[in-house]
């Protein structure tokens, strides 16, 4: 196990360095620089002045040197400085301000999806081929095929704009910054929108996993010894059916973040996803790169966590 952990840790580090190098290289092919707007509106007219500015933030150096400087700073926990959306401000500060909001949305979204998926999956498996099961099957096809941003717009249109049941964006009403109820009220629509895809996928997954365990010998044994059906289901079958779901959930974290980008964009939720969209729109590459690197690290770490969690929940597996 120790050998496995060490090997995987080295692998993760190498992957992250290579991935960041590739992204850094591609992004630096982009035309333009941090002072384009100033050049365009004639605030900077002297080309030598522009050169000096570029030199000041290290843009005069060749690509590999810039990457090495950047990765050195990143390894010291410094993601650089913003180019346009908050010029000169540290990317760390900008992202740190957004992290709690994204975490809030993602954790509630994850827990909500899990809860609904477990309920739907269990009902579908226990009542296989019933009307309810078929309805849930249709629902999961809907959930997989519907683009999250369209679903978000529809929710916004009907529950926000038409029925006025929920706010149309933001995380709190004016002057109600510390009102938890108000924050919860703002959270409901984005949370539902973010959850749809995961609910659709996880409920199907749990259904087939539970159907598989319900066919196992130990379930038959439990029934044979006269165990009541509810306990057969929850004590014997259900726990084992959840094992593979652990991996699926760990691997869903990156896609959850992908969904959060659009959810945050639509509901004006000031999180990392919205930051990425505005950074990309303003060609603020250091900020965008910072967000993507953090997500890439999260993706790689989630894969690792899935492997480790699997060993932990299933003692039969060894590395």
């Amino acid at each position, binding site marked *: 196990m120790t050998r496995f952990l060490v090997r995987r840790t080295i692998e993760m580090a190498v*992957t*992250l360095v*290579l*991935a960041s190098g*590739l*992204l850094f290289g*591609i*992004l630096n*092919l*982009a*035309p*333009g620089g941090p002072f384009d707007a100033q050049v365009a509106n004639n605030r900077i007219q002297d080309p030598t002045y522009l050169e000096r500015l570029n030199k000041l933030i290290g843009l005069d150096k060749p690509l590999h040197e810039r990457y090495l400087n950047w990765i050195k700073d990143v390894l010291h926990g410094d993601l650089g400085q913003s180019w346009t959306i908050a010029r000169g401000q540290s990317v760390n500060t900008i992202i740190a301000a957004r992290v709690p909001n994204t975490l809030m949305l993602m954790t509630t979204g994850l827990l909500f999806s899990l809860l609904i998926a477990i309920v739907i999956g269990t009902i579908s498996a226990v009542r296989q081929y019933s009307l309810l099961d078929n309805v849930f099957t249709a629902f999961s*096809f*809907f959930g*997989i*095929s*519907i*683009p999250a*941003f*369209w679903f978000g*717009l*529809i929710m*916004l*249109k009907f529950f*926000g*704009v*038409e029925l006025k049941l929920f706010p149309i964006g933001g995380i709190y009403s004016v002057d109600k910054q510390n009102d938890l109820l108000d924050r919860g009220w703002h959270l409901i629509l984005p949370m539902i929108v973010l959850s749809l895809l995961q609910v659709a996928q996880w409920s199907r997954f749990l259904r*087939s996993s539970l159907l598989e365990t319900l066919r196992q010998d130990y379930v038959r044994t439990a029934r044979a010894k006269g165990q009541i059906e509810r306990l057969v289901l929850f004590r014997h079958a259900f726990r084992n059916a959840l094992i593979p779901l652990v991996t699926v959930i760990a691997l869903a974290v*990156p*896609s959850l*973040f*992908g969904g959060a*980008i*659009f959810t945050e*964009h*639509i509901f004006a939720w000031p999180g990392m996803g919205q930051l*990425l*969209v505005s950074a*990309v*729109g303003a*060609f603020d*590459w250091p900020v*965008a*790169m910072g*967000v*993507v690197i953090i*997500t*890439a690290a*999260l*993706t*790689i770490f989630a*894969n690792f966590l899935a492997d480790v969690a699997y060993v932990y929940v299933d003692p039969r597996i060894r590395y």
Partner: protein
Amino acid sequence: MATTVSQPSGLVSLPAPAERVATLPPARGELAIIWDRFRRHHFALIGLGVLFFMLVVSVLAPAIAPYNPNEIDRGITEPAYVSHGFAPPSAQHLLGTDELNRDMFSRVLWAGRISLAVGFLSVFFGALIGIIVGALAGFYGNWLDTLLMRMTDLFLSFPFLPTLILISAMLHQYKFEGDTTVIQVTIIVAVLAVLGWMDTARLVRGQFLSLLNRDFVLAARALGADGRRIMLVHLIPNSLAPIIVAASLNVGGFIIAESAISFLGVGVSPPTASWGSMLASFQAYLRYSAIAVLIPGGAIFLTVMAINFVGDGLRDALDPWLRNR
């Protein structure tokens, strides 16, 4: 009873060889068998119908669309519609107009061309890259396998949507010579293909590894076939079924991905419409129109669902072992 005996008793009469052949069921091609299995999946059939309809309508868009999709109708005089657009459906405009009073129906038709083209082309090229990488890794093994699979892992470590948005935005900044729409579609297809080949590569490699020791491959080797021939004639055709299934299930995802980046403004740019960019421009006008939100998104939804059903049917038809799982 004994009047018409013409054969010695005790011998069973055998039909002539020609008759025996005729009593067997007619030989049927593999495609016919697959189609038979596919047909039993009712949703897949409906999906195929919807998809076919979408494809025909998109291909024929120039003939069907009543207006130029980018033409602003100056004939609309109602002050409210002049100021914020979104005239309701009428005889002139079947689905009403958009925020600039362009014909919604024509725009949806033309947008479909882009969305469908991107979906199918990107999956095709993605699968092509995946097949090449997977085939080389699976067939030659050794250091090449290690190298290519490490590369696959590397690409898998990119978070799909953030990377897609980042690279699309970067390429969006470039100014190219030529038809903007064609260039942007090419860019989107290329980026999607480069970010979406890894599953196919792993699939093909796995298939190759399991096929390499089968008798028919050994026989081909014994007959002196070279690597290229074994790959192209024996291995790839035999790996095709799972590739097609995976690819067909990818089309929907890539159509959504295209509409997603166009929705964020780094895909197809105005005035050209894709379903995603239409939704993006309607986002600010949610107050004025419900139909504007429902139509382009509904088109994406319907197409993607149809494709997912077809993919599901294909999986059942091509791979009976995967059934009921």
